[in-house]
């Protein structure tokens, strides 16, 4: 140790003792984390649907932390840039990825060379919501139930077409086709809304889209939701049957959001983040907010959240195999 270093240590010693003393008192323990600004990472650009969600939670969590919560948008490469950034960030609890954990898990299967092994480098601190994908038909169509649609599609054979706009939609679409024994052709869109004109003009027989779009279109009376992809019905829309109930599939295809941190983050920080999110997500206001997007609250402790995450990674390997999605990259 150099002389300069030693003198520095000497000068710091009283401060260290003071800090140690404070750490013993129970009131001060909570002050250890957080003692600086917290960064929420959003992997989509500002103004996107995901950004809205991240901003909502940043607003709600901020007053609980007593620190500032800063949103950083690190978009690109289907979310991989942001995921990689968090995986490589310092594991101190100040970098929190607020994103679809199902999407993070899926990245291991959707890309040929995923930049990081998310199961080893990312840890779930708190869970936020769960939401299904939805099977939709034109509101004017005669198909009132999924059974009606299945029967009609069987008759139409490979002349039938359906729309998807996300890998999740592709998976649910493929699972439905396999389970129901139909041969419809998938037509991919960049955004769900791009498929609306074609669906309303009858060129498309049905579509498999995210709940935000599906709920809005049903509310405006343009489309009708026939089924959700989760194994159980959701509280947000209890009268919509599941694919499982209709005997199409046993799988629980569910999108879920979480607050995630780099692996190796100290447990006290993880517990603190979990506590904040439990409080925010558990509120009535958040329940209503999430229901607007067709989802339910998901309240798990960090260990259960991490379990779900690791299972999700395996589940996606299966999904990708079933739906024959070609990994990118």
């Amino acid at each position, binding site marked *: 140790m150099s002389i300069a270093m030693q003198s520095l240590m000497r000068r710091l010693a009283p401060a260290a003792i003071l800090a140690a003393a404070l750490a013993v008192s129970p009131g001060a323990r909570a002050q250890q984390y957080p003692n600086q600004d917290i960064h929420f990472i959003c992997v989509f*650009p*500002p*103004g*996107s*649907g995901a950004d809205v969600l991240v901003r909502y939670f940043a607003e709600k969590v901020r007053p609980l932390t007593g620190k500032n919560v800063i949103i*950083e*948008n*690190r*978009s*690109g*490469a*289907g979310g*991989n*840039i942001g995921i*990689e950034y968090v995986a490589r960030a310092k594991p101190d609890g100040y970098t929190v990825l607020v994103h679809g954990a199902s999407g993070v898990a899926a990245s291991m299967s*959707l890309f040929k060379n995923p*930049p990081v092994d998310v199961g080893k480098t990312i840890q779930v601190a708190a869970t936020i919501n769960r939401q299904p994908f939805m099977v939709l038909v034109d509101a004017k169509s005669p198909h009132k139930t999924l059974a009606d649609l299945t029967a009609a599609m069987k008759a139409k054979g490979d002349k039938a*077409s359906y729309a998807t706009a996300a*890998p999740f939609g592709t998976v649910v679409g493929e699972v439905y086709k396999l389970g129901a024994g139909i041969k419809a*052709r998938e*037509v*991919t*869109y*960049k*955004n769900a*809304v*791009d498929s*609306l*004109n*074609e669906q309303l*003009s009858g*060129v*498309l027989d049905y579509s498999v889209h995210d709940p935000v779009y599906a709920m809005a279109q049903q509310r405006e009376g343009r489309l009708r939701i026939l089924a959700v992809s989760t194994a159980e019905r959701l509280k947000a829309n209890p009268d919509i049957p599941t694919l499982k109930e209709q005997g199409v599939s046993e799988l629980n295809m569910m999108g879920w959001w979480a607050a995630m941190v780099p692996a190796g983050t100290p447990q006290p920080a993880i517990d603190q983040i979990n506590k904040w999110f439990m409080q925010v997500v558990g509120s009535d206001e958040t329940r209503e907010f999430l229901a607007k997007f067709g989802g339910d609250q998901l309240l798990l402790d960090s260990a259960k959240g991490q379990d779900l995450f690791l299972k999700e990674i395996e589940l996606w390997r299966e999904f990708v195999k079933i739906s024959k*999605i*070609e*990994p*990118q*990259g």
Partner: protein
Amino acid sequence: MDILSNLATGFGAAGTWANLGFALIGCLLGTLIGVLPGIGPIPTIAILLPITYGLDPLSSLVMLAGIYYGAAYGGSTTSILVNMPGEASSIVTCIDGHQMAKQGRAGAALAVSALGSFFAGCVGTLFICAFAPPLAAIAQQFNSPDYFSLMVLGLVTAVVLAHGSVVKAIAMILIGLLLGLVGTDINSGATRYTFGVSVLWDGLDFLPMVIGMFGVVEIVKNLEQPDTHRDAITAKFRDLWPKVSDVKDAWMPVIRGTLLGSILGILPGGGAVLASFAAYTVEKKMAKDPSRFGKGAIEGVAAPESANNAASQTSFIPLLTLGLPSNAIMALMMGAMMIQGIQPGSAVMTSRPDLFWGMVASMWIGNLMLVVINLPMIGIWVKLLSMPYRFLYPAILLFCVIGVYSTNNNSVLMLFTAGFALFGYILLRFDCEPAPMILGFILGPLMEENLRRSLVLSRGDPMIFLQRPISAILLVCTALVIALIVLPAFRKTREEAFQE
């Protein structure tokens, strides 16, 4: 009355203090950059795009639109006073406007140009009210094949209306199409031209491209030219109001210019520049004594100034109803809307009527503001012209850099910006206009997506493009436009039109 209730919605949305404030900021900024030669609305809107992230969508569009037509106003001021067009759309105004100023009629020229522009702005706003809803109704019938044919028509017309050589315009569009291919293909999930770089998986970013090619290049271009002596006319401002005889001479050209501009603005590829040239040519052809033109004919100010403003307004119609940007500025506005999560197109009118009509209303408000701002502030704008560029340009460059970096805190984007700036400069040296490239870049991916989707839906049968009536009509129009390009007679007139 539908139009009235729609406009009421619009004025309600645009009339909030915040939005009025943004309209004012936009108009002031627009006038400012219009007055300053060298910095046009395209780089300004490009540079300001990142700022709009934090704003609410209507406020950001109101501000950007304000810049757009504010620039058209400001540009005419310097054209008349200093014989230096701040904007491409006011190049023709120089011809007679500056002559008028030299004869001591600067006030009259400025007033006619401002009032003519205001009149044109009002008519343009009404035009949007009248034509946007029926066009949007048609747009709701559009399926993938129709969109494909529409994009083809848009790109082909862009060739006709681009300045300079046809071959270069086609080349630029093709480069734009190629750049648009970079990224993940939505049909197969394959990545194209990404060279294993994950930043490219979502395609090239729009912002580094436009800021590099317009913002930075504009500065480089201006640095190449030494500060020219600016011959400002500051005296003789006492008679701001035109004489009765001026008004008599000007009102018909104003109406003609407005109508011409309104129509040309709607056409894909059209816009303010073309409208002003066309209006000037028409006035010259119609005049009893064409020799007066170039020597201070008031018609030569009134008609093009009205036309460029009317066209500025109506060029929003294809964007807002069909999602088709008709020129580079509209492509930027489209980018701004997409950044806000709004897919431009007929859906905007039904899903966000407050946004759509609010924007229409703000155009009228903006025009009114411009008249009020401009007439008393002319003296200040002229003073600004003497600001040394060695302060101005570094400041602009700084804003460019901050703007790009703040979008997703990724320093790779800086490299892209620099790369595009270099590329843009090379294009400039070869006299290639970057605007068609931007159109190709924006429309190309949409075109490909719709082409392939149509073929999936038809199970590979290309006749789908002729079987759907909308698509068939659009393709016939495309064929006609191509015929026009090939016809030698047309090529000659096109060259003449751009030479004046």
